């Protein structure tokens, strides 16, 4: 189903990126990175309207044809413009005090690259994948030991992503 899943921070650096054929990782990185162009374009084009609708799904946006290893990938981007409240409970066990939370308009992006030869993939399947990804990501953010902005190193998140990729093959 998915051959590459990426979570990209507001500043456009990857928080998490994983692809199934490991030997072709670089290509996926390039692909995901380039797709950010289109993501930004869509975000700025639709901007507010999208936030109002709470429609996070940007749809299929960047089809490419690759004739070398993996025929073709469609890249679907999920975008989270909703305000997320990250309460930074840093080192709660060590200091036992809560720092103030702050509100960030977290423009975290999710990108799923799917193998387009797998044509059975439906739009709502992709949507549900994104929902799962979003939920899992929220769990990561809620971890008091996770520092927003760090790369994600979570077993739970990892296994969830693996599950989505295994589903594919």
């Amino acid at each position, binding site marked *: 189903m998915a051959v590459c899943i990426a979570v990209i921070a*507001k*500043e*456009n*650096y*990857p928080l998490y990126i994983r692809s199934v054929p490991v030997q072709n*990782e*670089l290509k996926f*990185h*390039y692909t995901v*990175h*380039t797709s*950010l*162009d*289109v993501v*930004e*374009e869509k975000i700025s084009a639709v901007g507010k309207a999208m936030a109002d609708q709470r429609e996070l799904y940007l749809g299929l946006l960047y*089809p*490419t*044809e690759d*004739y070398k290893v993996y*025929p*073709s990938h469609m890249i679907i981007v999920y975008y989270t413009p909703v305000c997320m409240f990250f309460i930074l409970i840093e080192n709660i066990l060590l200091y036992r005090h809560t720092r103030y939370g702050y509100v960030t*308009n977290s*423009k975290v992006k999710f990108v799923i690259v799917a193998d*387009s*030869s797998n*044509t059975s993939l439906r739009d709502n399947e992709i949507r549900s994948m994104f929902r799962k990804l979003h939920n899992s990501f929220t769990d990561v953010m809620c971890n008091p030991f996770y520092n927003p*902005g*760090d*790369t994600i190193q979570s077993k739970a998140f990892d296994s969830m992503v693996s599950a989505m990729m295994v589903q594919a093959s």
Partner: protein
Amino acid sequence: MENKPIVTCAGDQSLFTSLYTSLAQQLPKEPMEWRRSYGRAPKMIHLEANFVQFKEELLPKDGNRALLTFPFLHIYWTDCCDTEMYKVSVKDGMLRWQSTLRLHGSVDWLIVVVESEAKKKNKTNILPRTSIVDKIRNDFCNKQSDRCVVLSDPLKESSRSQDSWNSFLTKLRTLLLMSFTKNLGRFEDDMRTLREKRTEPGWSFCDYFMVQEELAFVFEMLQQFEDALVQYDELDALFTQYVLNFGAGDGANWLGSFCATVKRWSGLLLRRPIDMEKRELIQRGEASLLDLRSYLFSRQCTLLIFLQRPWEVTQRALELLHNCVQELRLLEVSVVQGALDCWVFLSCLEVLHRIEGCCDRAQLEANCSHTVGLWTYATEKLKSLGYLCGLVAEKGPTSEDLNRTVDLLAGLGEERPETVNSLQSPYKKLNEALSSVEAFEKHYLELSHAAMEMYRAIGRMRSSRLIGKSLAEFYMKKGDPERAEGFLDDSLRSYVAEGWSLQVTHTRKQMAECQKLLQQTEDYLQTSALLAGDANLTEEERKHFYQVILTFASQAPTVALSMAAFAQLRQMQFSPPGAVVHVGAALQLELRVRCLMPVAVQVEQLAATLHFSLEQGGARGRAGGTQRRTGQGPQGQGDGVVLFPQGSPLAGAGMGASLPPALELYEMQDRSPSDSSLNSTGVVCKNMHLLLRRHDSSASLDTPTAGALPAAVAVDDGAQMLRARDITLQPGDNSILFTAPTGEPGSYTLRQLCGSVGRVQFVQSHIYPVVQYEVYSQEPQLTIEPLSDNLLAGIPQKVKFTIATGHYSVKKGDALQLSNTDSMPILHSSCCSATILSSTGELVGERALSVQSSEKVTSISLPPTPPYHTLEFQLEVLCHIPPTPFKPDIERLTNGEVRHRPKNHSQADSGMIHIDQKVSIDCPWSIYSTLISLTFYVPFKAKHSILSAGKRKYIQVCLQNVSDTNFHLADPVLTELTDRAHTSSLTRSLTHLFGSSFPQTVCSQQSVFCLWEMRWVKHLPLCLQCAFSASFAPVSASDAHTAFKPYRYEFQLDRVSTLYSLKAEILPSSGDQHCRTGALCGLEVSITRQAEPSETEGEEEESTEIEGLRTTKLMYEVVDNSSNWAVCGKSSGVVSMPVAASATHRVQMEVMPLFAGHLPFPDIKVFKYLPHSAVPAIQPDTDSCLENDTMSLLDKGLDDQGDTASIRSRGSIHSVGSGEQQRGLPMPRLEPFSPGQVFYWSQGRQVLVLPVTDDHVMEVNVT
């Protein structure tokens, strides 16, 4: 293309011909609403028709479903107006026509009868006009009378003819539409049936394709492009589904023809509305997949352009191209390598050309985002073709490459006739590009730049850079690194800025190669260093790049590289941790460095330059030890550890820059300068300016913040540096120890870190956070502090001498000279020793201390002590309690001044008297004496009072322990202080009266009372000076006897002898045995003179000589403060007492008890009454103090026995107003007697008062 629905015309051809022009003109003029089956929305359409002569061949035979040639309506024209003629010829013609139609099942017909006035007039024997029409209707239109229409005078311009035209046209349109609906509906049904059969073996997609396309054509004919497009889209989807099913293993037979090897890849052809060539191929079932797709798309494209949706064409084109490539792979169609690339390339350009053909330039530019995908795709394909055909290789194409090129070109076929004449046709472009290396380069660059420009124009910088990067790869292949560099650098910057490490690594590798070719040694080395430390690379690659550095290190001239690639600073740790040392002290700095190199590195020298600044104030303050660095200090960590922030290695510099810095919080305490009590405390954020700065909400890509290469580093040669030589840095964390120079006092800041490997230097130009240490120089200091909280006077106390040597080194023979004072001798103790502590508080040694005392000075010889050490020793001192001055409780002297007691003053809270003792010390390091003040507290407070019993006198001394220490008290003695002869006027004390024995323990805050009786021989002296002395020792003292120290309290007693005794008696009213409330009682006061006046006393007493009798005036006053008594009549008066022993004066007064019970006697007071003449005139401005002491008698009358008082139950009340009236007058004065001079016999007596017998009857009625 002039496809119009066919309408046949039968009957009178000449008549029709005459009407044809206007008919063809008028028919499409007005739109008609077309209601459609299957719930499709109704549409307004303009109908057109192709009128042809009726022939039987035109009628479709069974099974022929061609819609384009299908006659939708049949019209029979006649202008017959003659019944005969009708019967003879016209009717037969109509009948034949009808039967032919019926034979073919066509029911869409219309008979038009044209009437003209001219014709009518010619014939005289005409039937009524309607009859012909009626006949026709009768004959043919059984139930459909509307199938016959009359058109009157069509060629005339009259309203009647216009009306008939209109109704005719409406009829015509309606019937046409009806026919459409019916026939198309039937057609669609057939088509659906055919589609349903698709699972049957003989079914062919091509056949079905033709059928549905027929429908599309009809829609197109009707200008219903939307509907036509839907037909094609349905075909497209159906085909796609078949291909997918084939991929899933469910193959259909007819697909076989599409799986044939692709022989032609001539690209899309969009210039014709219908590509008949391909259509025929499809019809014959010989089309390849590409043919079918091309045809389908060309039709869709045509329709979309009709619909004015060119941008959808580009989007669909891209999808189509991707899809075709995908499908060919899925169907496992064998394709010559590169053929698809050719096809895609040609198709992309064809689409672009087509779009350019129908849009103007501005539109094109505004819609770059739609076309740029095709441009990029074409670029990619051309590139891969170039690589395939050996056009990119430096040597040019080989013969194999040329063969391949020829094969590819062959597959293109001949150029289409449409484009032969255009210079820029895709076909020509591809031909040219593949023909030579130069032409390829030209075309490739042209395409690449066009795509990049477009991407840049629409702000897709990343895509643009990606193309740039592939251009760079191309240039590198061509051996042109100069041009490649710019593109690589651009991409690298953006990747670094956005923190995509894999891309960074990959691009950097290319960069390294490029720089190597360009001979940019320094940059190449820097890149190599970065790559050698790159975790994304394999061990071998990293070693390779490391080797590059080593090779350069041994030969090249000195090169300075950034430290960041080589190693990361982790932390620095000072030892001692405070990072504040005195001059010359050892200070070590441990640096933890993470080496990023793959193998161990031999570093010849690692040096950190120091910036030295002379800092005066801070060092001194810190050296004093009083002002600890509050909070965390500049190092950020209390224990002298400096941690360097680590940007995530993955994200690199870009991420580090974009994340907000961590809060740097410091604790702040504000202490008041005088007593170092805490005024306020708080938390300060030091990097607020960084945190509160506005952040851009999105990182801009246009200006990458961090360069791919760090800015050139300059090595600065500071005068002083930390150095470590010949270190081997292992991969990973290393620890390096530096010894910091501490020669000069001041503050040292680490500026630059530089590691040298051969000729290569790795430089970190700034160390952040700031690392600094301080070196101070300190003056020697002497402090003396008490060991306990308070020093107590009177007993030996220990004080601690602390000498902070500072820069002074105490030599042998140095001594402290203490000037002695009598009040505070320094006690000798033989076992005196001093401890020497180092600056960090470690015990260095313990030396004996010799104390020599002469009359004037005490000299303490100090043991030799090195500089910056602390010398501590203790000495015992004793502060004598000064004798208590006289009457400390009466502070007013006769002159009215408040008496000041020098040195001693009471402490406000505890009541302890303290003594400030100054000690002057000469120190060996200074020519000036140091004056140090010690405060001692007197542990006791004494009070005396005199008590009388008739003539007998007692002295009571109360001694209170006000200190916190418990004491033993012994030997209390009271002595009279007289230097004259009559010493024994006082006798022994009566302390044993209480049964307590001394020594006695007096705890803190406890008091001891001692009582003595006074006895005298002759006269009691007017003034008696006494001294109380006792000895005391702290309870904790080991040797009780030696520890006892004397305490002495001196006081003076004045006028102690009893002059008068006062006796009061309350007598019940006559006849009563007891006093009763409310009844007046008599109060008899008798005042008796007790003693003869002594000579000295007489002077004091104001006496007057009247007839040889000396009398003094006394004033008495009865005051009842407890409201028990009401004094009736006068309550006060003045009596003259003769100055003789036992002279008695009685005064009778009446008082009334107000309550029953045992009532205490009212107070009776006696004052000396000094008449005004005896007193110097009282100044009107005398202060109020005096008025308080001497009671004004204004309201009591001035005569001796003045009966001024009425019933007075309270004390006298001064009237201020009257007082002011009398101010100026001389007034008599009252003076109280001193305690003991008047003895009150009736003090404390009580009298029984009975309540009044109640005579009242209380009536109680009970009902």
